[in-house]
């Protein structure tokens, strides 16, 4: 795997060159300053001339470097495909994908799934050749660009050059570019999920998807296969998600809210300073740990308790997953509610006390109503967290999509299905794989709506007392 180390070394080379550029630029500025009659003749301080050289040395090279690496594999693959014999090229897309995979495996020296025929070995050779050619040319181009930029800037350095202004402008553009990444991420999410979803909805109509009562995404591979109907009705999956989230919220809202109230209104300083970080630990535990705990400890416990009362509890009951998820969410509810409760002005409480209300009456009738919008916002955020939670349900909830509201039965959720459809062997372009993206789209839309509502509610409320 020598070729894989190349990019890292190249990256270090670019870094090294730009450090060199910095030193050379600085030296050059001292030199021109001496000719012009002293350092005070320079427009900017020498560091800025160095920085200018370093930036020009690194940035164009880095941009070429990253774009090259991003598109390299795609372009090489296309080139290799176009060089394949015609009978291979005319295969359907999924078969062609398999062949490309095999070629890549030959390149990496792994065992291939089918007998490798000579044309594929040739293609693999071709791939290897193109790959090394691309690496070599990338190295050459990047280094040349860096050095040329360095030399050009060297030449232009003179006492009149407004180096500081140039450097600052460049840094500002870098800062702007960094801040737009958030937007590109959102666009990326929307486009990728939407694009695959549209392909899915071309096969399965949107109305069938949203109103179908049966979910069994196993598609028949052969036409005569039995039991693989491939029905994509999302209602049972949504019901399962709602059921588990509802159980979670039944646990998280009362406990979280009461904890927040106790911590902000009753607890003294020491208790607060101990209990609050401990509660935050709950938020810091990875969800895979909760999932393991739910599957290993909580689910059997619930099943045994159920058996004691002659109840038939599934070992992957919605109750176990929901319960543990609720506990995971407690700190979200409590810390957000804590903030809003603390934001309620003391004058409101004092007013209530003056009328003779007890502390709990003040809280229930004055503080909580005053903080209600903020609490609602925090609950909405918690709901969105519950809907999107993956690992707990993957490990503790089931796979079969039952349309039920019985918490003792097995249900499945949107996230479980996404994982089930995409982990393991995937066939590209089959509705089964695409369905995961359709589910992802639904998940994204629902959580987005919840978040926007929550943020608007919270923000509006905050302004009220400021």
């Amino acid at each position, binding site marked *: 795997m020598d070729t*894989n180390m190349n990019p890292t070394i190249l990256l270090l080379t670019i870094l090294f060159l730009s450090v060199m550029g910095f030193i050379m630029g600085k030296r050059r500025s001292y030199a021109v300053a001496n000719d012009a009659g002293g350092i005070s003749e320079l427009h900017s301080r020498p560091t800025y001339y160095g920085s200018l050289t370093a930036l020009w040395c690194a940035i164009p090279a880095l941009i070429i470097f990253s774009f090259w690496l*991003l*598109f390299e*594999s*795609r372009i090489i693959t296309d080139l290799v495909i176009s060089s394949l014999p015609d009978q291979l090229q005319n295969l359907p897309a999924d078969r062609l994908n398999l062949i490309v995979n095999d070629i890549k495996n030959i390149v990496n020296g792994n065992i291939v799934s089918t007998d490798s025929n000579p044309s594929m070995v040739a293609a693999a050779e071709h791939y290897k050749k193109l790959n090394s050619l691309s690496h070599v040319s990338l190295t050459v181009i990047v280094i040349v660009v860096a050095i040329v930029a360095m030399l050009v800037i060297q030449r232009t350095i003179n006492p009149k050059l407004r180096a500081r202004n140039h450097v600052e402008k460049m*840094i*500002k553009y*870098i*800062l*702007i570019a*960094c*801040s*737009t*990444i*958030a*937007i590109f*991420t959102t666009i990326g*999410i929307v486009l*990728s*999920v939407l*694009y695959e979803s549209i392909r899915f909805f071309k096969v399965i109509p949107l109305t069938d998807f949203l109103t179908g009562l049966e979910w069994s995404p196993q598609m028949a591979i052969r036409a005569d296969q039995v039991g693989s109907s491939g029905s994509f009705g999302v209602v049972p999956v949504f019901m399962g998600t709602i059921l588990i989230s509802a159980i979670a919220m039944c646990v998280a809202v*009362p*406990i979280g*809210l*009461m904890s927040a109230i106790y*911590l902000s209104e*009753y607890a003294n300083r020491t208790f607060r300073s101990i209990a609050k970080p*401990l509660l935050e630990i*709950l938020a*810091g535990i*990875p*969800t*895979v740990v909760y*999932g*393991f*705990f739910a*599957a290993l400890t909580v689910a059997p416990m619930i099943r045994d308790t159920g058996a004691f009362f002659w109840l038939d509890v599934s070992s992957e009951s919605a109750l176990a997953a929901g319960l543990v998820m609720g*506990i995971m969410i407690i700190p979200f509810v409590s810390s957000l509610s804590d903030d809003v409760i603390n934001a309620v002005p003391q004058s409101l409480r004092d007013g209530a006390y003056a009328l003779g209300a*007890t502390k*709990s009456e003040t809280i229930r009738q004055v503080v909580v109503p005053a903080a209600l919008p903020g609490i609602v916002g925090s609950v909405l955020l918690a709901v969105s*967290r519950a*809907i*999107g939670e*993956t690992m707990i349900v*993957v*490990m503790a909830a089931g796979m079969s999509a039952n349309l039920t509201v019985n918490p003792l039965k097995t249900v499945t959720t949107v*996230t479980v299905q*996404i*994982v089930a459809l*995409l*982990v393991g062997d995937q066939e*590209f372009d089959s509705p089964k794989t695409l369905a*995961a*993206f359709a589910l*992802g789209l639904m*998940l*994204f839309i629902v959580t987005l709506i919840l*978040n*926007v509502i929550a*943020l608007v509610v919270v923000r509006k409320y905050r302004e009220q007392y400021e």
Partner: protein
Amino acid sequence: MIETNIDIVKKGLGKRYRAEKRFRIYGVCAIAASLIFLAFLFISIGTNGYTAFQQTFIRLSIYFDPEILGDTTHRESLASANFPAIVKQSLLKMFPEVQSRGEKKQLTSLISSGASYYIRDMFVEDPNLIGNTVQVWIPADDDVDMLIKGHTERGVEEAERRLNNKQLGWIEKLERDGNIEKRFNTIFFTAGDSREPELAGIWGAASGSFFTMIVTLLLSFPIGVAAAIYLEEFAKKNRWTDIIEVNINNLAAVPSIVFGLLGLAVFLNFFGMPRSAPLVGGLVMTLMTLPVIIIASRAALKSVPPSIREAALGVGASQMQMVFHHVLPLALPGMLTGAIIGMARALGETAPLLMIGMVAFIVDVPSGFTDPATALPVQIFLWADSPERGFLEKTSAAIMVLLTFLIAMNALAVILRKKFEKRW
């Protein structure tokens, strides 16, 4: 007697005070419930996992028989040399009464199937062993391990046990002779994944996590800080910056699995990056951690008082100099704290890594950013799915390691905050 207002109030007072008390108790109960659960979680994981730090070993006297090994002068012939036969031979020597084929098979199943590799590695290191006899501690099979650790009962019916009566007898003989013993489990910390619980370790997954975190840190911290600086110090309040802000806040609340879908569709399918690679995992984690770091960095910048900025501008610094020479150094501890917390969250994240194929069964320890790898939380997920009893304690032990890292990172964040926090 006429009832005055004060009488009405007094009559209700006892009830109201009781309500007050109840309310307080609800509050205490709520906090106690969460704390009890937390303790329960830790105890359950701890009791399940602590035994994994020990491993049962069996002492064999291995005779490097030149006849069985054949030609050992070349590296190529070593690979095909019959080391399993050597292990088998030394076992049979300890139990001469074992004769039939079936019994021999049962006997050899007491030691780990990886035993011959250990012997081979020993031999490769020191070829002079040929013709000599050496005492070697070999890891026992996971069934034996579970029995010695007391996770499986000896008393139950033979049919319900993984080990039959004969095998139990052999184990007891080994115990009597002091040839079986629990030792510190170095395999767990140095090996990659394996199908055999006694040979499985977390080193492969930990290195995968390490490479992933390096990519995440190198990308998300500079980009996050840069974005925060622009939004807080330079951006004018307009539509464009509003959109960016709303975007960042929303991204912070997008489910992590959606980032996994993005990684699958964009990095793997569109750009054709390698599956299961820490590089891609790091990129996805970067996108996920960025909002956290940006939000924390902005808060840190906000906490620097305006007087610092005014003073810098007053003595003639440019805006850029003001930010980079004066504001940024003061805000840096806060930013670092945010970054560490973001990294801790990324370290524990599993779902997006499942989407980009970091769940494959990978035995080799990754040595670079593009080698196939898995990550610590994913390893936990994989082991939790395994049916063998031996993986149960491994899972819990891996969780303990992961939690130790997370607690250390969070403690570091707290210390940083305490040490550098400035009240203006």
